[in-house]
């Protein structure tokens, strides 16, 4: 019990756990909604996006944090953006050279990651005022919080929208024969809005607000 309390009180634990639940980038801060709409039609794309996003936000936060003492305040946002974009493009170039198949799957996400408000938001709100290791963990936490919501939404959308999970049919043919139909609406962007709204509601109820 004592050791559990100790872990919970460390700065690192807080930097990770806070964005996963209490200060979730999507369901509390309402950031990154645009990409959450685009990539949650299937679980697979949602997971790929979550992983790439976690990678980028962790390393860009760390880099910004390392440079935080020399970045002039008046051009800090430009600097953050330059760092993020450079890192993302570098990673993309390497993937295209050595992991061509993965890079083909990522193609469209790369642009979405650079424009994702969470990356800039964490650089601005956390990395600029915290040491590199905390900024890195904060990035991991935000990636996990973002990924958690994405995967939940994608699970619901893929299951109800196409009757599949990870592209495998899970709703048996007999149910279709009995008159069940996939919910075409789930494949469209507004469905993600509604599910995210319901998740926000659920979280607020669970958190007792």
């Amino acid at each position, binding site marked *: 019990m004592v050791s559990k309390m100790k872990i919970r009180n460390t700065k690192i634990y807080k930097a990770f756990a806070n964005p996963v639940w209490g200060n979730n980038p999507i369901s509390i801060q309402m950031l990154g909604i645009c990409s959450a709409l*685009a990539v949650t039609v299937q679980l697979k794309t949602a997971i790929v996006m979550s992983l790439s996003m976690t990678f980028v936000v962790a390393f860009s936060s760390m880099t910004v944090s390392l440079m935080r003492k020399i970045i002039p305040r008046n051009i800090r946002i430009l600097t953050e953006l330059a760092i993020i974009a450079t890192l993302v493009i570098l990673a993309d170039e390497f993937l295209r050279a050595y992991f061509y198949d993965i890079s083909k799957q990522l193609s469209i996400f790369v642009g979405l990651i650079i424009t994702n408000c969470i990356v800039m938001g964490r650089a601005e709100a956390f990395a600029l005022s915290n040491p590199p290791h905390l900024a890195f963990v904060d990035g991991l936490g935000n990636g996990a919080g973002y990924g958690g919501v994405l995967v939940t939404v994608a699970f619901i959308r893929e299951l109800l929208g196409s009757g599949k999970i990870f592209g495998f049919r899970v709703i048996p043919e007999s149910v279709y024969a009995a008159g069940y139909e996939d919910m075409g609406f789930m494949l469209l962007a507004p469905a993600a809005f509604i599910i995210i709204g319901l998740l926000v509601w659920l979280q607020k109820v669970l958190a007792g607000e």
Partner: protein
Amino acid sequence: MSESIRTLLFSVVLCLICGTLLTAASSGLKEIQQKNMTIDQRKNILQSVGLVKTDRQYTGDEINRTFEQKISRLVVDQTGSVIPSSETGGAKSETELPIYLYTNEDKQVEAYVIPIDTRGLWGKIYGYLALKSDGATISGFTIYKHSETPGLGGEIEQNWFQRNFVGKKIIGPEGEFVSIAVAKGKADDSVPKDRRPNYVDGISGATLTGKFLTQGLKEILTSYEGVSVTFRNTKEYCKTNKETPWCRK
């Protein structure tokens, strides 16, 4: 004053570092990337004629070897006559149409592959459409590059969608040219029975991607129609043009 100079200096240095890193990565890795892309395109061509299975991994060497053995690139004009490589401009044009010929062990042409580059919803769609040597039946369709929405229009890269094309016809029952179209939803539900050979199942939530693809395929197949007609009439054509690659026995 000193503050502004510091800011200016910082941004110049930052730009230089970022620029150098990006340039180095881009030019240093270009060769490997180019190689990957070539292999991927060759793999797609092989897949469209059924020489590569989708459920197996292939090494780059395997792809290159099969490609060099079985596939040859030709440039033809609109009537299907081969333009010697010394006279071609290299780029695709109205009168110079590139095709890939798939020749089997008995030196018989099994299929010809037409490169597809057409407009999609968000960007260009690149792929290959292979037609059997009867000039009418689709042997396969693949897409190697696109920027459609993942999960919606992006489904065009999925096997189920591409398998859809196999065995479909680009001609009608009378032998007239009709092209191949993407139906809205399942072809069985939305297309009259006698037209079904010319339609493939569409993707729900991606009506526009289907529309652009239908349009693009029609335009490309129209410009290649002369070539296809030649294949359809191969027997008669070969009597007078014995030197054409697909007539040589």
